[in-house]
């Protein structure tokens, strides 16, 4: 049987400078699952979803609740007989709107969601209560062949943030959490963390009318999963250090400063892979000085599960050549550098945010303007606009406390964190040997 995925380790340079100093090398570790069309794997895995909906007072603003109802109905309409879905609403209390048994009757499920505004559950935002109830429902139907996920939608700041993080963390082995934030009141750091820690997705929804589309994206993504529980193990050669590690696609975020043990091994979980969507990690390595000649930087293994087939793994190596020839060291791998650029832009944006929080407006604008130069070089119009809008707001408000300013911030965060995939033509160009 053909490999259900490809796994590559690409270095930013094939030649590194041999000198008395350290040298930075970026390494992209990327797994791409193939489509299920080639016969193995059933493709669509049955779903086991818990949908958690905010029904606090503010959900009546901007017709948010109406769009939520529309979105849930869409979801219900697109379920198959194998799928298990429960729907929970929360405010001060949580209430199960529809159990998987109810949802099997689509008409009954839709009637239940229509009545969401009649529930007597108060008007606050106790998200942890809603999450706990949905987790319990998902647990009732946990099986290895199902995709277990909790979808959380909120528009406000919840009272028990640590409880939400803990719930996501305690259950991450069994299910992923996708978090959707509507408007500007929610805590995006909380939602990002819940989804990143559990390998779900984070969605910023600036305009409530986008809610049904986001549900559609979620459903499509789940339907496209062909490889599960991906993990990249890296073992580095002597003297090679990790300076930084970032998840590079499909979303960009820092993976913390990894601690490398005596055995020089590190692991990065990448979760489930949707066919055709790369799951990748970008490492910034510091190479020690060496004499000219080829050298192995490290080895990487991708461990994963193919539903119905079992666990598998695939190995690859990273080698470079130390040289004194600076024309050789100036050659770079365009594809890796494209992701380095994207990750750097996301980093600049978050550094700008921190500087602003610390009251350093000048530094924040300088970092943003460097980020904008980056997005312009990449030709990423959307990100350029989002960052330029943010910079305007920074200059105007200095603090980003107004609603308009917060919207531009959330928008910019979301845009620069979403990895821009290169189109196939550009890829060919990048992969050409120089």
């Amino acid at each position: 049987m053909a490999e259900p995925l490809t796994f590559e380790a690409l270095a930013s340079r094939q030649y590194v400078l041999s000198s008395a100093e350290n040298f930075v090398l970026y390494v992209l570790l990327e797994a791409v699952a193939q489509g299920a069309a080639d016969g193995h794997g059933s493709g669509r895995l049955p779903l086991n979803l818990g949908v958690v909906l905010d029904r606090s007072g503010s959900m009546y603003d901007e017709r948010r609740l109406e769009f939520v109802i529309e979105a849930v109905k869409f979801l219900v309409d697109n379920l198959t007989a194998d799928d298990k879905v429960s729907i929970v609403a929360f405010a001060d209390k949580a209430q199960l709107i529809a159990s998987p048994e109810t949802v099997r009757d689509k008409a009954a499920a839709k009637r239940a969601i229509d009545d969401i505004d009649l529930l007597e559950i108060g008007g606050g935002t106790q998200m942890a209560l809603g999450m706990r109830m949905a987790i319990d429902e998902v647990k009732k139907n946990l099986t290895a062949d199902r995709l277990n996920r909790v979808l959380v939608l909120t528009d406000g700041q919840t009272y028990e943030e640590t409880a939400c993080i803990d719930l996501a963390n305690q259950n991450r082995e069994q299910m992923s959490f996708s978090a959707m934030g509507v408007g500007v009141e929610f805590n995006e750091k909380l939602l990002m963390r819940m989804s990143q820690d559990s390998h779900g997705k984070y969605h910023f929804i600036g305009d409530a009318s986008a809610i049904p589309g986001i549900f559609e994206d979620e459903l499509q993504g789940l339907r496209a999963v062909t490889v599960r529980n991906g993990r990249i193990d890296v073992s580095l050669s002597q003297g090679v250090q990790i300076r930084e590690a970032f998840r590079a696609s499909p979303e960009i975020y820092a993976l913390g400063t990894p601690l490398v043990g005596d055995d020089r091994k590190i692991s990065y979980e990448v979760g489930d892979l949707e066919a055709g969507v790369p799951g990748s990690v970008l490492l910034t390595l510091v190479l020690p000085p060496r004499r000219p000649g080829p050298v192995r930087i490290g080895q990487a293994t991708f461990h994963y599960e193919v539903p119905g087939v079992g666990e598998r793994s695939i190995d690859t190596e990273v080698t470079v050549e130390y040289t004194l020839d600076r024309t050789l060291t100036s050659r770079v791998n365009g594809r890796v550098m494209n992701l380095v650029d994207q990750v750097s832009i996301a980093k600049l944006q978050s550094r700008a945010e921190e500087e602003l929080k610390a009251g350093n407006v000048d530094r924040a604008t300088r970092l943003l303007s460097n980020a904008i130069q980056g997005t312009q070089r990449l030709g990423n119009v959307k990100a350029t606009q989002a960052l330029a809008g943010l910079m305007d707001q920074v200059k105007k408000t200095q603090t980003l406390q107004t609603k308009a300013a917060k919207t531009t911030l959330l928008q910019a965060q979301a845009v620069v964190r979403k990895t821009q995939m290169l189109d196939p033509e550009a890829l060919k160009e990048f992969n050409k040997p120089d």
Partner: protein
Amino acid sequence: MVKCSECGYENIDGLDYCDGCGAKLAAAAPAAAPNGGAAPAAPEAPAETPAAAPDVAETEADAAPAASKAPTGDITPPAAPAPAAAPEGAVAAFKAKFQIVRGGRKGQEFQLEDGNNLIGRWDPETGAFPEVDLDQDDPEAKVSRKHALLRIESGKITVEDIGSLNGTYVNRQPRLQPGTPVELKAGDEIIIGKTFLKLVIDPIS
């Protein structure tokens, strides 16, 4: 090393973006050091990059955010309404204040008086100022004009929701029942709209 042309920071060879200011580093090969072709030293323990980037020159120590352009500049009400309720004589042996711990003007304090202290927003129609005026902290009007009442009476401090739209919360417990006062102690946290207030009690020396 590659010197950043924008801020002068010296970055490790091979780096794409300046560690100091985030500017894209010149894509060209690092400035040719007279290497002489001699084989470089054998691997040593790689020294990590120097800390403390020079970064942007600190021109202004503080850029003075001071976003006080809301209609109400003054926090203390010109004439405290202080309705009857407060019994004379029972003067507390402490000074209480609210401190904003999260939200709008973090760190802002409101001195609390014996008797009734209204928590809410400046009312442009009546021109009334509440004692604890969260107008500037609440651009989206999550705070009702008359939101809650804090009462200091016979050495006891209570808070009562007086029919606010978005509720009053003490120590992240469920929403207070309107009209039912709840006793507070030092350090308690009250959430009004998006503003988190901490009750600070200082004994009068």
